[in-house]
């Protein structure tokens, strides 16, 4: 008997993400689909708009990571008008972006993904949330989390106007510089944020790495995919969130490609399936071979672990030490363990805070000149940054008046869409045998999914860090056989 299992996160009844698992006649997993049942059409309705409004329009793609869109859009405009922002403007943009990466990674680790580990993968569902985390790490620590996020978000508000949808980027720079008074505050926030990141990594070590059971789960085969990886690197091939070249490594960790943002169309193509509104990017030189991993499949992954895999290291000293420790523990580079994304996210948190502090301490951010007025006739511009959830591409074409005629967006999470499908399918295969659905399925599938911190799903929107799930198991006639719920 063929069965269909639907995992419908009730956090999106109309759905941002939906998982369908089909079993074959033996009751084993035949196929799993990760569907995105939503589209808003930014790539079309941006046509006709004034290009300089794009940094205010595109953040509305996502209210959780608006800063990343604001940055990619600002950089696309620099390229469109062939105007280089003054050094202070670049540094302030990167400062805003570093604050954002740090607060967003904090949100994910403590509120969303982290409870799986800090409280434990097998812990009762009602404890696997931020309150459970606070119980485990202490009330003071909980307060620390809320406090540091607020202060990091204050930096974005001060410079960008609104933390939910900042407005400061223009072609050639930013609308507002940094005052002396604000800089003092940013330095203090930076210092405290570095301490907070160190504390977070220590908590991860004490609670997760010293527990063999957890480590076994992380390195286990069920959460492993040998894929290509993509991410931005600086001139020394170190991780960079704001600027650089895009580097791709193969499943053995060797450099497969390194290219400028302007060359992305030579390297990335997107596949369309009729069962999802989301597209499936893949490496052009390898080709689309379906939802499979390995060297012959163009499927690649992005976001924290991918960024660490593609880079030769971290650009700041404390983060570099943690980077080395991560790969030593996981048995070298590249690490293919999907659950190691959580650990990589914390290494990046430390880097983001160290970088924030470096930039805040840099005297140059006080320079009043933060804009260069563009003079070139606009035609085409491409901007790429690393969003918390992966490499983000904004590509605009305009007429000579700077009116948009064409837009292409490859949004961070979308890069991972094929890999997310595969991870869910693999976890399901490991847990569903002979038609018997393990009660642990909900936990385990959710963990496979949540490691990517998918922006388009509820994981990121979930306040207590507990994504409510319902799995329906139906027979061929659609008759409900069993409902699992948490």
């Amino acid at each position: 008997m063929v069965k269909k299992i639907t995992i419908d996160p009730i956090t999106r009844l109309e759905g941002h993400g939906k998982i369908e698992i089909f079993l074959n006649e033996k009751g084993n997993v035949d196929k799993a689909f990760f569907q995105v049942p939503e589209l808003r059409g930014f790539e079309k309705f941006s046509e006709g708009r004034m290009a300089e409004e794009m940094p205010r329009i595109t953040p509305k793609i996502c209210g959780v990571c608006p800063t990343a869109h604001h940055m990619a859009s600002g950089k696309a405009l620099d390229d469109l008008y062939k105007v280089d922002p003054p050094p202070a403007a670049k540094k302030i943009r990167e400062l805003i972006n570093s604050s954002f990466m740090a607060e967003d990674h904090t949100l994910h680790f403590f509120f969303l993904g982290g409870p799986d580990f800090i409280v434990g993968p097998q812990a009762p569902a009602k404890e696997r949330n931020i309150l459970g985390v606070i119980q485990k790490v202490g009330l003071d620590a909980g307060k620390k989390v809320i406090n540091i996020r607020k202060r990091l978000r204050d930096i974005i508000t001060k410079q960008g106007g609104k933390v939910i949808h900042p407005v400061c980027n223009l072609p050639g720079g930013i609308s507002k510089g940094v005052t002396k008074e604000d800089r003092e505050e940013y330095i203090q926030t930076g210092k405290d944020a570095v301490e907070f990141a160190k504390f977070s990594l220590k908590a991860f070590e004490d609670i997760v790495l010293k527990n063999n059971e957890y480590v076994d789960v992380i390195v286990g085969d069920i959460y492993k995919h040998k894929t290509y990886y993509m991410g931005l690197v600086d001139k020394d091939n170190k991780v960079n969130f704001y600027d650089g070249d895009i580097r791709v490594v193969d499943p053995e960790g060797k450099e497969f490609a390194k290219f400028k943002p302007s060359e992305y169309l030579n390297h990335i193509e997107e596949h369309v399936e009729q069962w999802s509104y989301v597209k499936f990017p893949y490496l052009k030189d390898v080709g689309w071979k379906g939802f499979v991993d390995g060297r012959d499949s163009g499927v690649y992954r992005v976001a924290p672990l991918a960024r660490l895999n593609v880079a030769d290291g971290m650009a700041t000293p404390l983060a570099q030490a943690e980077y080395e420790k991560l790969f030593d523990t996981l048995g070298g580079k590249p690490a293919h363990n999907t659950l190691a994304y959580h650990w990589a996210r914390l290494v990046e948190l430390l880097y983001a805070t160290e970088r924030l502090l470096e930039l805040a301490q840099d005297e140059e951010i006080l320079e009043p000149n933060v804009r260069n007025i563009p003079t070139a006739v606009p035609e085409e511009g491409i901007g790429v940054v690393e969003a918390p959830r992966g490499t983000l591409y904004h590509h605009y074409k305009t007429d000579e008046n700077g009116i948009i005629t064409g837009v292409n967006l490859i949004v961070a999470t979308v890069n991972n869409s094929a890999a997310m499908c595969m991870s869910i399918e693999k976890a399901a295969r490991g847990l569903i045998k002979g038609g018997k659905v393990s009660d642990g399925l909900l936990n385990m599938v959710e963990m496979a999914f949540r490691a990517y911190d998918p922006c388009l799903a509820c994981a990121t929107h979930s306040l207590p860090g507990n994504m409510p799930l319902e799995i329906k198991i139906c027979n061929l006639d659609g008759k409900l056989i069993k409902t699992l719920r948490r």
Partner: protein
Amino acid sequence: MTKPKVAFYWNASCGGCEEAVIDLAEDILKVVEAVDIVFWPVAMDFKKKDIKAMKDGEIAVSFINGAIRTEEQEEMVKLLRRKSGLVIAFGSCSHLGGIPGLANFWDRDTIFERVYKEIPSVINPDGVLPQTKTQIGDKQLTLPEFWDTVKTLDQVIDVDYYIPGCAPPPDIIMDGITAILEGKLPEKGAVLAPDKSLCDTCPRSEKKPDKISMKEIKRPHEIILDPEKCFLEQGIICLGPATRSGCGERCINANMPCRGCFGPTKEVIDHGAKGLSAIVSILGIEEEEKLSDEDVQKLIDQIKDPAGLFYMYSLPSSLLRRKIMRKGE
């Protein structure tokens, strides 16, 4: 005394309105103490059937964000309307249509054509488009249908009050919730924010001359923006004169002009038309008598993308609603 029951729901939105609620920080605990949250997909495990099982009007108040563009969304908000005493449209998309409402310049087919076929990175030789039903062997997958037109919440159900903004600022959210809890509500249909224009509260208004004249239109990237001078005085289009205050002048504080996320004040029917008339009434006013028709046309031509600019947040709620699509266009 039993606590009033409250529901939160979202439609076509970005998640920013949820973040705005989370940004209430400690204040959210006060809300949780005062009410009984019966439905909040973002945070709690209640199902649609739980809502269905409730008595009509059992929920005291439902906060609904996001624009409406699928059948599922329509069904859900109609259900919530039936079960709720009050319905509050929360945030720009629900209130006015918001930025996703700009899609009303196009329709489903033109959007699909671009997204799944024309985009330079897309390789789609067979012209595959997402379908509401897909049959793969014996497996069937479904997707909700994508409408041609984005609608505001009050175009689908009756709305009692509006909390404006993209995203609504924390003090406006708390003031709104407090007014509801204390029963100190204005007349039905009101926007729960001050009924003043942004210019009235703008920090730059003090230095503003009594009479503003825009000699010419500049775009924000064309000049170095003076952080103290009124944007209109600098030749920059700012929707402050047409837009409701209460946002905390957040964009102005970042030295950028208003784009109208709070929508218009009470007496204004069409936000974009009001904005456009505010600008043209001061454009070239100083030497008006000396201008030929040709000069006037030249001035007007300096306003690029007027529809997209003046209706950036409010196209679905406007008198225009959407662009009429003709075949072959």
